[in-house]
């Protein structure tokens, strides 16, 4: 079984996210880069499927040469080959990304294409679906379990009242969620192997999509209101009222 995982190079941010002066992007001057937690699970799943079935686990990204770092990280986890669709724009819009991946996939015949549910930075949650539609393959999002049975794949998702299980013919596309598995750490040998591995670079003609980032804004700070209910024993009735409202005392 051949599995291909699509990953995105994203900044590893702290609790406060600094923006560039024109507020159109995250200020990454002092940040490292990574792949999102959904994508780490996708890589882990691909490696496990390849190990189990004797197939291959590939990894693909769209981006500038720096994004090779993320491909090598995935390879140090066990992915066995990597493709980078060259795009000088570090964070292209989802339409462009999807078109680039679609073009790349026309030359690759993986049985399963995995995406993270949404990228860790932009969070559009579009690319996997756009690619599946363009390739006319079945797609399921929010996947937290993958089973393989001959030429069919079973995809499990959490639903509000239980679990949804989808069955689809191969080849198929899935967008997975963190929690799908517990991704492994790269090993030293894996890292050394990945460093020497070749990243195949392809450069299809890329059209520019229609989504534009105008400006990024910080979410208004959520302020926790502190109400002093009283002091000493005098506060007791007010505390009882609060607990009663919460249904903790009757």
């Amino acid at each position, binding site marked *: 079984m051949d599995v291909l995982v699509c990953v995105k190079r994203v900044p590893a941010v702290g609790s406060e996210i*600094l923006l560039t002066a024109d507020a159109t992007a995250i200020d990454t001057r*002092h940040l490292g880069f990574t792949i999102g937690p959904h994508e780490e699970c996708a890589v882990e799943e691909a490696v496990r499927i390849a190990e189990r079935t004797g197939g291959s686990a590939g990894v693909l990204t769209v981006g500038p040469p720096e994004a090779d770092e993320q491909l090598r990280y995935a390879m140090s986890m066990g992915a066995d080959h990597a493709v980078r669709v060259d795009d000088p724009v570090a964070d292209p819009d989802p339409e462009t990304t999807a078109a680039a991946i679609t073009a790349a996939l026309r030359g690759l015949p993986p049985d399963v294409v995995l995406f993270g549910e949404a990228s860790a930075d932009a969070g559009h949650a579009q690319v996997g679906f756009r690619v599946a539609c363009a390739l006319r393959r079945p797609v399921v999002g929010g996947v937290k379990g993958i089973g393989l049975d001959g030429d069919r794949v079973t995809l499990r998702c959490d639903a509000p009242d239980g679990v949804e299980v989808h069955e689809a013919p191969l080849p198929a596309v899935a967008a997975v969620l963190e929690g799908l598995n517990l991704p492994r750490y*790269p*090993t030293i040998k894996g890292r050394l192997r990945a460093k020497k591995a070749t990243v195949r670079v392809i450069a299809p003609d890329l059209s520019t999509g229609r989504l534009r980032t105008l400006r990024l804004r910080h979410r208004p700070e959520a302020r926790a209101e502190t109400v002093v209910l009283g002091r000493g024993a005098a506060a007791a009735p007010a505390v009882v009222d609060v607990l009663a409202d919460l249904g903790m005392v009757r």
Partner: protein
Amino acid sequence: MSSLPDRAQVVVIGAGIVGNAVVHHLARLGWRDIVLVDKGPLPDPGGSTGHASNFAFPVDHSREITLLTGDSMRQYTELGTLTTCGGIEVARTPERVQELHRRMSSARAWGVDAELISPAAVAEKVPFLDPSVVLAGFWTPSVAVVDPLRAGELMRERAVAAGALTVSALTEVLAIETGDGRVRRVRTDRGDVDTEYVVVACGVWSPRIAALAGATIPLTPAVHQMIDVGPIEELAATGREIAFPIVRDMDPLMYERQSGADLEIGSYAHRPILCDPDEIPSLAAAALSPTQLPFTPDDFDPQMEAALELFGGILDRPDAGIRHAINGLLSLTPDGHPLLGETPEVRGLWSAAAVWIKEGPGVGRLIAEWMTCGAPEIDPAAADIARFAPHERTRAHVRARAAEGFNKTYGITHPREQWSSDRGVRRSPFHERQRALGAEFFEVAGWERPQWYRSNEPLVAELGVEDRPHEWDARWWSPIINAEHLAMRRAAAMIDLSAFSQFDVQGPGALAFLQHLTVAQMDRPVGRVVYTPVLGPDGGFRSDLTVVRLGDAHFRVVTGGADGARDLAWFRRHLPGDGSVALHDVTSAVCTLGLWGPRARDVLAAVTDDDISDAAFPFATARWLTVGSVPVLALRLSYVGELGWELHAATETGARLWDALAAAGEPHGLVPAGIGVYGTTARIEKGYRLMGHELDAEHGPVEAGLALPRLKAQDFVGKAAYTKAREGEPEATLCTLRLDGARDASGLRRYPQGGEPVLTPDGGRITDSRGRPSYVTSAGAAPSLGTHLLMAYLPPRHAVEGTELLVEYLGERYPVTVARAGRTPLFDPDDTRMRG
């Protein structure tokens, strides 16, 4: 957490291990109203203390660092925050094996229990290590892991319990206000605090904080890469944070230590990655912490290969993953030493920066003692923040030297090794002449000084000078030095001494000012040259220098280039506030050429019309002369034991002076000679002491043999201790030892270089009644005596001429004889040559 008071006796900025140790010791020594602030939260504010590898190897070649580490380990132990695990430095190459022997010598010199062990013995202690790549191990049983965050908490708690400390975390310092050159107020986002003292213990942020007060803390943040690999069954099975010895894999410049179920691997081998204090992300903007920057894996890959070679058995497993990887920040300085003491720019602003975890508590005590008593127990000279020349405090210099020094962290650094970056900053007016003569330049305080001249190479054969057969002994050395020495003793030599630091002290208060700072009587006739020790309050050496009285109220102070910045800061700090003394640094205005040897008078007489006979120009006096058209201040004295002068002239006239002497000297056999002669061979034959070697804060003039015949009536810094020392018997005496024709096991002649332990004939350590060890303070050839000399302080029972002892050098022991106890020179003991 309490709110900030309006006033404090001292504000300590930075609650890492150093700041916590400083407040603890200040409180212990009686300071009250101490305020400790940090921008970050407690207990881990986000600085380097929070991510350090936390191990302590007690042996260092530097005595001060070894003492600081030892003191710190005692403090960590007392706080219950030290776990002894032992440690092994392993060698993969023969050169490193030699270095481990040198480590052994240092261990013995400083009294740390250690042993060289075989690869099999290494593997016995660390069973998952592959002994086939190892040639030897340096085993130190007392190596330990410490918990600096917990130690810091306990130290804060003690100071709070003493009612001495207010702690304010999440408090950002916005400004440090000064007035009349001293600290007045610290402004923070939680209020302002009036104070006379501020201690900057901010680690990698220290330059930024000091700059708020207009001072410089010359360090740069730099990356040290670390990864954690695990889980590893054998480590997890111990159930302990650390159960196996720490391994320093010295040749690939890395270490491995157990950290619970993981093996932590750290590296000093990667390219230097420096950053700017202003570029460090804030706590909120950092992914991990401000001092744990994103890992750059490409830089670490060679270390992974090396780690697999040594620990492949446990690292090459599919379930042992790289669980944590950081580019941790630490502080690097231009010379690798810490930055301690009051900043030379701002009174009351103290630096406690560029300190490793293993030295933190010791540095806290040192700073607190220094602030309280004016002199700490451990000599702070090598770490004194006042030690830098102005250019050494620039960003460019700090970065150049830090980049060069980073890979020396685990490197093999020869005691004479020279820096290669940012050279040629300070050049004497003789520089072009010296280059033409093939000078080999060594550096001091940025000055380029010839160590020897290749133009003198023919003298080596002519004077029958032997080379040194062993590469280590001959490194950064040349037989030309000995040839220049003999040529000087035979005829004459001229030596560039422009790196001397020189200050003019003038004004109605000049005499009283100098009397207060020096041991010798300064009230001598105009024209007298006086050599004097300069002491700290505890009577230990602070400096030694020459003072020339140029007028009733005008003195010139001449001191060594290496000591100039510290001496200048010391003098400035003591200037009276009434303006009665003016102090000017004239170092750059004056160049100095030494002219010495039996023919020196003939040479000088050929270029001056002034009367330079002994009657007209006696020893220990100074006079203005004219050499051709160059006015010269001539000082009749000598550090090489020959007749001659220091000739001081305006810098721009230097080349003319050089040419005149060189031409006049030719018929007399004058040669240019380097600092190899001046600083080592000639002075050691004469038993002259050198600041930073024989002379340090641990020893006073009586032990150094430099007590003056008379005690002056005037009070001076260190007088009480000096007077007391004069009245008793010295606990140690500086001795000169002969090492005659020492040959190693392979039959090669060997030449110890300094720092080696001096041992009893049966190999026992020698310490005096104060616990100070006997070790070689200086070593050098004595070509005119046909031997190799060593200097060392010895306790009375050994400080007896003729006593046979041993010196341990690179794994072998050589017999030495005490040739002189005290200051009388071995060469020309009556000084007839220089008085001639």
